[in-house]
């Protein structure tokens, strides 16, 4: 298999990249991989290579010089590594991220598994809302005994359980 860049020498470095949401294989010979800085990840935009050309640019547009307040990660770091610093980075760099994810995946909204904890918290929040609705209705209907009962249940329901979203 020949090198994709010089088309002459035998490829020894095999990379996979995503361009416009499509996987592309890049095969490079020793010389070209060195020239492209593949052997020295600090010397080039690994983000471009891993995530598709333009990925690092996309990130750059979303506010140069911005840093994640939680981990200190910057766009330049993303450009170098193609990785984020922490989970909070997804909020900080959300602007360029959206376009990048669109090219890479099927849409930009997760439809799969939700962690148990969150699921429970969500159910909990919904249950609380339901009780509050019932309470209002009981008050409106002047069913004071039911209302008192509901109020009691809500009181025992709330502490420490509403924090999660």
């Amino acid at each position, binding site marked *: *298999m020949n090198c994709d860049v010089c088309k002459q020498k035998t490829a020894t470095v095999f990379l996979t990249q995503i361009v416009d949401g499509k996987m592309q294989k890049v095969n490079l010979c020793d010389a070209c991989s060195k020239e492209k800085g593949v052997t020295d990840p600090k010397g080039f935009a690994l983000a471009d290579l891993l995530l598709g050309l333009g990925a690092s640019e996309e990130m750059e547009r979303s506010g140069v010089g911005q840093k994640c307040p939680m981990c200190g*990660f910057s766009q330049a770091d993303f450009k170098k590594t193609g*990785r984020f610093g922490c989970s909070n980075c997804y909020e900080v760099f959300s602007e360029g991220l959206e376009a990048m994810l669109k090219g890479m*995946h099927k849409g*930009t*909204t*997760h439809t799969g*598994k939700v962690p148990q*904890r969150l699921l429970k918290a969500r159910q909990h929040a919904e249950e609380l809302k339901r009780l509050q609705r019932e309470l209002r209705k009981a008050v409106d209907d002047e069913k004071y005994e039911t209302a008192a009962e509901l109020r009691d249940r809500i009181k025992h329901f709330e502490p420490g359980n509403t924090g999660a979203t």
Partner: protein
Amino acid sequence: MALHNILAESGEWLSGDGPQSHIVISSRVRLARNLRNFSFPGWAKKADRIAVLECVKPQVESLPEMADAYSAYSQDLSALEKQVLVERHLVSREHAAKGIGSAVVMNRKQTLSIMINEEDHLRIQGIRSGLQLKNVFKLVDKVDTALGEKLDFAFHQQYGFLTACPTNVGTGMRASAMMHLPGLVLSEQINQVIQAVNKVGLAVRGLYGEGTEALGNLFQISNQITLGEKEDEILTRLNKVIEQILQHEQNSRVSLLEKKAVLLLDNIGRAYGILRHAHSMASKEALNLLSCIKLGTDLGFFPEDGRLLVDQLFMETQPAHLQKSSQQKLQAEERDTLRAEIIRAKLAKFPKPDGKKAIERGREERKEKEEKDGRTE
């Protein structure tokens, strides 16, 4: 449980008793998970990595699935031990390069391994023999759910599970099957298949080397998309494509038997001759020749009871396994000599290939099929 005790036994996926395991060697699913409020391992300071490790490791070890587990800090494993784990697909190459601040925990059956502080805080991986992605997913999903109750995983309302690399965000799931496809390679259809699979958003990679140069005719098919599709949808789609490739591989073998019997006999016969008589053999050559013997076994050129032996040789002739068995570090040349020696010894009583019956059977089956087709037309 000590590592050498675990490694003395070959993993479940190597036993070859899963569904369709003659062609689909193994099914693997891994989930990437991270803790909220901690930097990802590649960006975190050493103290933070250790803090995450000390928080995660006890939780992993206390899983019921890890009751008889092996657990080790990365710095306590030798380079050779790590390489053996890589060859068994129990840790990634990237994880094998880690030192202080990382660890791996795996169960005795070697069906479940959890890497701590690889690229993500957790990489939960399941691997089983044959085509059974959904069973493997069930295992890692259960483990993930249990861990998710104890650990505060980074989860975003829109993006789902957050990962160091945006290519993994969402489900954090990468599912793959390792397939042995000598029929498609011999009949020169493999590139078409690879292109078709790439078009539907899945990746095909040679397990060792790329494209037609894939050694041992071993390929890995995996999902690329992790965001915007449910786990189950991803697995169903992947499974469907794998079944199609499986079908193509089977068809190509039938057609090789029919139309290119000499090519088959020659390839398998030569492989047999070289493996039985060589005195120096590089890992690459061994993989390719063993692949021919494996194909021969599938086609009935060799008795069925030799199958496990051949499958095990694929693993035992890998560089780290070889050095482990000899209890010392070997130079490349010494490795090649030892490799040839082991293969000769293991195949000493292996009978000669007998292709006649298989080819005749192929002919008869075809005749029957033609008669049947003739009747229905």
